[in-house]
C-alpha cells in the first residue's frame, strides 16, 4: 500500500521506472478521489437500497392498494375503488370490535408491564452477588419465541384441567364451574395481557436499569437531607431522573402493543381460523388485517385497515408521550 512498497526494484531498467513513477501517482489520485467522494455513499447504499425496496415502496404502494379493489380470489375485480374501502371500514363492526379489543388488551398489558418492570429494575439496581446472572435470568421470556410461550399459556388457561383454574380453585373460585377463559372478553383479555406482560417485563426492566445506573450518585446524597426512604427515593428521585427512558418505553409499548398479533393468534384453539375467539372476543386489529387479507383474500380492504392502524398508533403514541411528560414534570 505504501509508496516504498509499490516502487519498482532499483535493478529495473531506467525508462520503465520513470513510466511507473509518472503514471502511478495519477492513478492513485483518481483512486483516492473516488475513495473519498464516492465510497462513503457506496457503504451506506445497501441500507437505503434495501429500505427503499422493502420498506418505503410497500408503504407508498400500500396507499395505492387501499384505494383499489384488490382481491386474491378474483383477479378480474380490479380498478379504483376510491374511498370505498375506508367507507366500509367506518361501518365495519368487526373493525370497531377489534379496535376495542386492541385497546383493552393494550392497557391491561402496558400499565402493569411498565410498573412491574420499574420494580424489577429497582431490585436489580443494587450491589448484588452474581448481578450478570440475575439480568440474564429476567431475559428468559425475551428470548423465548412468542409462538412457543403462547402455546404453554394456552394450556395454562385451558377451561378443563388448566393450571390457572386449578390455582383459582385453591383459593375458592370456580370449583363447581371452571372459568372458560376464552369465552368472555374480560377473561381472554387478561389471559393475553398476562402473556404480553410476562414477555416484556424483563426487557423493560433492563432498559430502566441502564438509565438508573447513570443517575449521578450525589443526587441521592442530597435527598438524604429530606430523609427520603427507599420507596420515596424511587418515586421522587429515580423515576423523574429516568423520564426520557420512561417515555421511550411507553412509545415502544404503544407501537408494539397496538400491533399485537402473535399472542391472540395462537391463543385460539384452532389458530388457522384467525377469528380471535368464537365471537371475536379478543380479535386484535393486526389479526383482523391478517384475516381480511389472507383468509377473506381482500387485500385492498386489509391495506386500508393498516393505514387506519397507523394513524391510530401515531395519535396514541403522541398522546402517551405527552401524558408521560406531564406526569414526570408534575412530580418533579
Amino acid at each position: 500500500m505504501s509508496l516504498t512498497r509499490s516502487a519498482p526494484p532499483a535493478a529495473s531498467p531506467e525508462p520503465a521506472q520513470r513510466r511507473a513513477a509518472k503514471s502511478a501517482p495519477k492513478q492513485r489520485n483518481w483512486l483516492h478521489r473516488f475513495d473519498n467522494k464516492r465510497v462513503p455513499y457506496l457503504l451506506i447504499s445497501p441500507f437505503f437500497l434495501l429500505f427503499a425496496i422493502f420498506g418505503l415502496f410497500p408503504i407508498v404502494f400500500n396507499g395505492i392498494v387501499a384505494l383499489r379493489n384488490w382481491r386474491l380470489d378474483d383477479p378480474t375485480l380490479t380498478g379504483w375503488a376510491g374511498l370505498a374501502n375506508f367507507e366500509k371500514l367506518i361501518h365495519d363492526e368487526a373493525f370497531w370490535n377489534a379496535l376495542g379489543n386492541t385497546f383493552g388488551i393494550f392497557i391491561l398489558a402496558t400499565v402493569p408491564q411498565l410498573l412491574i418492570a420499574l420494580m424489577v429494575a429497582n431490585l436489580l439496581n443494587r450491589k448484588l452477588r452474581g448481578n450478570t446472572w440475575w439480568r440474564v435470568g429476567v431475559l428468559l421470556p425475551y428470548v423465548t419465541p412468542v409462538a412457543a410461550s403462547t402455546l404453554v399459556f394456552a394450556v395454562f388457561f385451558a377451561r378443563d384441567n388448566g393450571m390457572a383454574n386449578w390455582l383459582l380453585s385453591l383459593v375458592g373460585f370456580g370449583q363447581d364451574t371452571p372459568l372458560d377463559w376464552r369465552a368472555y372478553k374480560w377473561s381472554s383479555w387478561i389471559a393475553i395481557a398476562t402473556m404480553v406482560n410476562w414477555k416484556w417485563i424483563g426487557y423493560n426492566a433492563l432498559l430502566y436499569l441502564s438509565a438508573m445506573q447513570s443517575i449521578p450518585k450525589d443526587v441521592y446524597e442530597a435527598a438524604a437531607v429530606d430523609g427520603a426512604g427507599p420507596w420515596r427515593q424511587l418515586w421522587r428521585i429515580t423515576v423523574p431522573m429516568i423520564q426520557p427512558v420512561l417515555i421511550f418505553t411507553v412509545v415502544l409499548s404503544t407501537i408494539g402493543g397496538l400491533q399485537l398479533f402473535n399472542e391472540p393468534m395462537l391463543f385460539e384453539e384452532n389458530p388457522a381460523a384467525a377469528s380471535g375467539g368464537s365471537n371475536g372476543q379478543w380479535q386484535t386489529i393486526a389479526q383482523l388485517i391478517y384475516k381480511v387479507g389472507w383468509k377473506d383474500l381482500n387485500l385492498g380492504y386489509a391495506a386500508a385497515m393498516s393505514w387506519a392502524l397507523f394513524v391510530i398508533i401515531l395519535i396514541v403514541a403522541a398522546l402517551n408521550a405527552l401524558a408521560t411528560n406531564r406526569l414526570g414534570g408534575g412530580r418533579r
Partner: protein
Amino acid sequence: MTATAPRLKPRRRAEIGRAPQDTGGNWRTYLALVAVLALSAFPLYWMFVIATSTDEAVSSIPPTVVPGGEFMNNLREVFTLQQVYFAASLINSFIVAFVVTASTLFFCSLAGFAFAKLRFPGRDKLMIVVILTLTVPNQLGIVALYILMGKLGWNGTLLSVIAPFLVSAFGVFYMRQFIMHAVPDELIESARMDGALTMRVYWSIVLPAIRPALAVLGLLTFVATWNEFQWPLIQLNGTEFPTSMVALSDLASGNYVIYRRVLAGAFAATVPLLVLLVLGGRQIVRGIMEGAVKS
C-alpha cells in the same frame, strides 16, 4: 438534621443518602429476585414438563409438576408428522436466521462506519432518515410487501422472509454509536497517511475493534429473526418450507390438538435460543442496556 431522621433505626439511616447501586441487597431483595426469576422461568419449565409427559399426565388435577420420561417419544411423533415438516422447519429457521444475521452484521457495520468516521455531504441528514425509519410500524406495508413478493415470484419461498430483513436501522444506529467511541480517529488517520483505502481501513482497523458490538448485534438479530412469526406465517403457511414458528402454529391447528406433542415441538424450537442465552447472555444484556429496540 430533620424531624424524621432521628426516628429511623441507625442502620437504615446509614443507607439513606447512598445511591441504590451502592447499597447491597438484603434478604428481601434476593427473595423478590428469586420470585421474579421463578415466574420468568416457570412457563419454560412447564413447557418441558408437558413435553415429557403422557396424555393422562397433561390433564391430571392437581397438575403434574415433575418431568416424565416421554420426551423422546413425543419428539419422535412431532418429527414424523406428515405435512408439518418439523425437521425441515428447524433447518429453515437456521438458514433464515443465519443469512439475516450475517448480512445485518456486514451491511450495518459498513454503514455505521461511514456514518461514524467518514466525512461526506448530507451525512447527518441521512442518519436522521435512518433513525426515522425505526418508527414505522411494520403492519403498515405488509399487504403491499406481499404483493411485491408475488411480482418478484418469491411468495412461499425462504427468500421472501429473508430479503426484507437483510439490514436494520437499529443495526446501523448501534454500529455507528459503537464505532464512534471504539475506533480512535488517529488510528484511521495514520492508516490513511500510509495510503490505505476506505475498505482497507474497515477491514484491518474497524472490524477488529468492533468484535464485541458484532457479537451483541448478531445475537439480538438471530433471536429476533428466529422468533419472527407474522410475516413467515403469511408467506410460508401451507408450503413445504415453513420456519419453525410456522410449523408450531401448524402443529397447534386442527380440531384435535395433542398438547404434549405441541409443546415438545415448542421446546425443541426454543432450545437453540436458550443455548444462545447461556453462551451469550452477557452480550444480550449489554445490547439491551445500550438501547436495543424491539424489532
